[in-house]
């Protein structure tokens, strides 16, 4: 494998890891506050559709992004009402949200665009284009560093850089602010937060809302940056891979970056079987590469390689003592 192939491989790794990273951080906020969210997939899908649809109608991708975030927030609110206010089963609510998004996106797409459940292809300002970082063209011909900077670091859409910036931001918010401390506490021991006179319900709604915003950006990235338009079921299980990455990362922001990059690499390798064969000297089935994130998650969750311990109050509705 030559150097340029490696750069290309890492480049598509970053592209594929971005939606996973955003969704993974989304899940991190929600689950750290004690709200399980298996509806990441549905929120991403809804955001993917609405951002592509609104971007294609208005011709402005930024308005599309806002629409995507709004759609994701609506589903987040639904999850919040079901699991926080009415203390319903968070897992069942997540399942419902996934199906609601899968059905509604196609239904609305067919009603609005009549193109068999897809949006028109996005062109020009209706899409996030890659940004060429300053100096990328100038040093592109320099050996080693040139391709690294010009191909791998430069040339991604703004959302990729936003996702990368979200990692330290999440870390700072969770571990260096009062809000973060409270958020983590509400996922471990909500009664103690309540005793301190802080609203458990308010904190959990805030966490679920942040989750909605991040899922919205992840979905918008799928349909307006990674691809040019919405197609049916385009999230394609990414919400679940993000969930897997979250467990893999043991609910921590920096680990989430490495986990999603690793799973992004698997995704990139799936399309390049020739590279795997060249490196390890034998053929690996594409299906095995595709299933690897899930298999690794099962192994990690079972504690065979390091133990992943979820937030203690996760999945349980909080009932104030009476």
């Amino acid at each position: 494998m030559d150097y340029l192939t490696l750069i290309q491989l890492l480049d598509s790794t970053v592209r594929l890891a971005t939606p996973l990273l955003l969704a993974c951080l989304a899940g991190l906020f929600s689950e750290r506050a004690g709200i399980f969210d298996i509806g990441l997939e549905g929120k991403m899908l809804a955001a993917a559709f609405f951002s592509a649809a609104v971007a294609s109608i208005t011709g402005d991708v930024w308005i599309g992004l806002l629409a995507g975030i709004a759609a994701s927030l609506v589903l987040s609110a639904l999850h919040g009402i079901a699991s926080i206010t009415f203390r319903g089963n968070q897992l069942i609510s997540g399942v419902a949200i996934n199906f609601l998004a899968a059905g509604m996106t196609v239904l609305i797409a067919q009603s609005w665009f009549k193109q068999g459940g897809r949006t028109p292809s996005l062109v020009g300002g209706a899409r996030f284009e890659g940004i060429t970082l300053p100096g990328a063209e100038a040093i592109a011909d320099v050996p080693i560093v040139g391709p690294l900077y010009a191909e791998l670091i430069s040339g991604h859409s703004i959302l990729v850089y936003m996702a990368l910036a979200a990692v330290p931001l999440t870390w700072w918010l969770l571990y260096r602010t009062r809000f973060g401390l409270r958020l983590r506490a509400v996922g471990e021991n909500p009664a103690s937060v309540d005793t301190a006179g802080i609203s458990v319900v308010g904190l959990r709604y805030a966490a679920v809302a942040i989750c909605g915003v991040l899922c919205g950006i992840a979905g918008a990235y799928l349909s307006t940056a990674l691809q040019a338009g919405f197609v049916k079921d385009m999230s394609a299980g990414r919400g679940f891979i993000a969930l897997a990455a979250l467990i893999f990362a043991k609910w921590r922001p920096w680990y989430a970056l490495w986990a999603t990059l690793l799973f992004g690499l698997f995704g990139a390798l799936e399309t390049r079987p020739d590279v795997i064969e060249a490196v390890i000297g034998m053929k690996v089935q594409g299906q095995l590469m595709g299933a690897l994130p899930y298999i690794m998650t099962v192994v990690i969750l079972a504690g065979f390689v390091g133990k992943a311990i979820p937030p203690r109050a996760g999945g349980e509705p909080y009932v104030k003592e009476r």
Partner: protein
Amino acid sequence: MDVMPKWAEVVLVPLISLLLAAIISALVILAIGEDPVAAVKLMVAGALGSTYGWGYTLYYATNFMFTGLAVAIAFHARLFNIGGEGQAMLGGLGVAFACLYIPWPHWTLALLGAALMAGLFGAIWAAIPAWLQVKRGSHIVITTIMFNFIAAALLNYMLVNIMRPKGQMDPASAKFPDATHLPTLHELLAPLGIEFSKAAPANVSFLVAIAACFGLWLLIWRTRLGYEIRAYGHSESAAKYAGISPFKITMITMIISGALAGLMATNNVMGEAERLVLNSTEGAGFIGIAVALMGRSHPVGVFIAAILFGFLYQGGAELALWTSIPRELIVVIQALVILFTGALDNMVRMPLERVFLAIRRSRRAGATD
């Protein structure tokens, strides 16, 4: 003492939840510019207006009965088996092995053998997450979700690389031998002088599904094991104190659950397609969740809910054929049913409980006067 009388718990709450789901579905149809009344009429005519329609409705209902029962028994032990889809895929693999590689003399024996293999494969696929939950503490919901994806990859690998006959392009197994053909309802009812559509896929496994409903009722409410499962579901600590082993109950419940989901393959793989294809489960494993929630995890409820979803599926297909409403409408309805009967259960229950409490108080006040 329960706040609500039993009939309200069993009938009123699910009925109101369903009504809410139906109202919102109607609003969705209105919003996309179609007429909900005409849509319902078309669905009824298409799904129940002919033996052909009934044949499809009952075919889908058979699938949903198996997956619904699978989710329901897990609910009794307070386990959420979201992996019915993967378990049904593995069941399909089991059916394919049994039908392709064993020369069966008659369909009755073939059905028995295939059902055993389907149940075994499904049970294994559910037993691993169950074991991981009890022994290693991994959450069964996450593990079963992951196992759905692993099952899909495994099935894809088996069909593309191993089971596909030479020279065939599409990823599917060879056609099963004729001896494994299950009699359709047409063939079963013809000797009795009842005309039933020849083209519809409903087959003898519908009767197997009904038997499974009855069997599960016996198990849950008439056996010691069923009592232990329910006790464990109500309170793990109390069950432990009574000497019930969490390991044993979790394993047995999930094995039965997985076997039931796997059994679905006798209907869709053996009864309908007569070969193993990719995506033969068509999401029936997930519909099992809606069916079990709507049926309140009771076999009779599951039976009724499965027929209703069978009707929705066949009716939805007819809608997609004759109007511009896509088939995904059914996915929306399914989501709303899960939402209202499952996640938002308390939204319906809390106000109802208040009403019943008020009635009881006013009665008591009347009695003391």
